[in-house]
């Protein structure tokens, strides 16, 4: 540890890390796609109160939100193939990345199902009544009135989940995936410049997180165009220090956050 800190390594390492962003983003994108599908399916039984399925969906969400992602990774990578082998399906040589994406996907799905559920319930009931009153049926009301508004409300949740998953990818190295963190570790090891390697790593993560956050804010603003009053004179009477804007309470410490 007596190797002195050398800032030039930080930049060197940061540059060397850049190509590995691809793997991390691949995991994030893959698990979001899986998670959106699974999350939506898991949300439906609870929105429509379908007996049995509703409890299963609750159990699913509870497990994936109730255990550390690190443990989930181990269980799925090593356990799932064994379970399926009994059914005669051999997954032992399926690439590790597939397992990683599947596990993160299921994890993301649990959070997304909760997000969708709360977003749908937060669309005010009067809107649905108005839809019925103009003669729409349940499906029309859901598709045309509830869903578009729920999606807009859910954007901050998706943003949190996405950024949370990005940070969680730092654990994929335990299964031997050569992503950002793994690469930083081996870089640091080589010249004993751990500090520099991890600062470089932090900078890269920060950059991606900020970019993702901006992107989501942009989408949210577009989707919530309809909530932006033109003339804000009357509402804008804000207590000097007590500004109206509420930060989205952040779930991403819970969403792994590691």
């Amino acid at each position, binding site marked *: *540890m*007596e190797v002195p800190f050398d800032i030039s390594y930080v930049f060197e390492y940061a540059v060397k890390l850049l190509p590995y962003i691809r793997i991390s983003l691949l995991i994030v994108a893959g698990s979001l796609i899986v998670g959106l599908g699974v999350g939506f399916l898991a949300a439906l039984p609870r929105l429509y109160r379908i007996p049995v399925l509703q409890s299963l969906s609750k159990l699913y969400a509870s497990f994936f939100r109730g255990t550390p992602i690190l443990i989930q990774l*181990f269980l799925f*990578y*090593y356990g799932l*193939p*064994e379970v399926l082998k009994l059914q005669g399906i*051999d997954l*032992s*040589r399926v690439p*590790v990345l597939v397992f990683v994406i599947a596990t993160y996907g299921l994890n993301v799905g649990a959070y997304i199902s909760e997000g969708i559920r709360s977003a749908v319930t937060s669309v005010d009931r009067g809107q649905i009544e108005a839809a019925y009153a103009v003669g729409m049926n349940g499906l029309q009301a859901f598709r045309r009135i509830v869903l578009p508004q729920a999606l807009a409300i859910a954007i901050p949740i998706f943003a949190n989940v996405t950024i949370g998953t990005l940070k969680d990818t730092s654990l994929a*190295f*335990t*299964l*031997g995936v*050569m992503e950002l963190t*793994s*690469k930083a*570790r*081996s870089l640091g*090891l*080589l010249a*004993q410049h751990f500090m520099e390697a991890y600062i470089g790593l932090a900078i890269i993560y920060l950059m991606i997180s900020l970019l993702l956050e901006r992107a989501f804010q942009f989408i949210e603003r577009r989707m919530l165009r309809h909530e932006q009053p033109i003339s804000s004179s009357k509402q804008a009477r804000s207590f000097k220090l007590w500004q109206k804007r509420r930060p989205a309470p952040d779930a991403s410490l819970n969403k792994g956050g590691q």
Partner: protein
Amino acid sequence: GTKKNEGGVQKIIVGATNQFPQVSFLDKDGKLTGYDIELVREIDKRLPNYEFEFKILDALPSMLLSLDTNKIDMIAHEIAKNPERDEKYLFNKVPYAYWKNMITVAKDNNDPIETLDDVKGKKFLTHASSSAEQVLKNYNKDHDNAIELVYASGDVFDIAEQISTGRVYASLQSDFVLPVIDPQGKLKTVGKPLSQSEILFLFRKNDSEGQTLADAIDKVLQEMKEDGTLSALSKQWLGQDFTTAD
């Protein structure tokens, strides 16, 4: 779980890490290399029927679990043979190195230490599932848990730091690992080797393909010993010839 492709060449997945300098690590160009790795590559050259491919894992527990679950076919990670491991796993027969477990302490530590009896009540840094852990656990079993075990997860590569700053008192290391984990020479070994074990490759037990492979590898290793390739590799990566027993 291994599969033959058309040419009759069998593909073998070898578990390794990238966290073990000089043995299994990434060089400046990001290429996996080191003593164990280059050894497997040499074996690969000499065994036309097999094709070896590396799978990087983070630490021994993951490697063992991966071997159990057919995700890999063998482990090349300076695995020392001991009775406990022998019971559950298959080893090949020809060692490619010898591992002498030595008590390793800080350089300025002048306590008279010969055997584990001299370090009762001290803290030892060790890794779960390592052969050093086994030695210490065996000792503890007979001596009323006299040594306090501190487990590292393999995440933080700072054994030398922890011993030299006195966070832990000592650790069990092989003579040849020392320069690798302690490039700045903060540690020294003391006393006589507590045990000497053979370093071998690890395979699944009760697996006929694994047995065939182990036998084939033994044959090649024997050849390499005889033509000097093995000791050359050892000198190249580990600085000395560690491939013969005392």
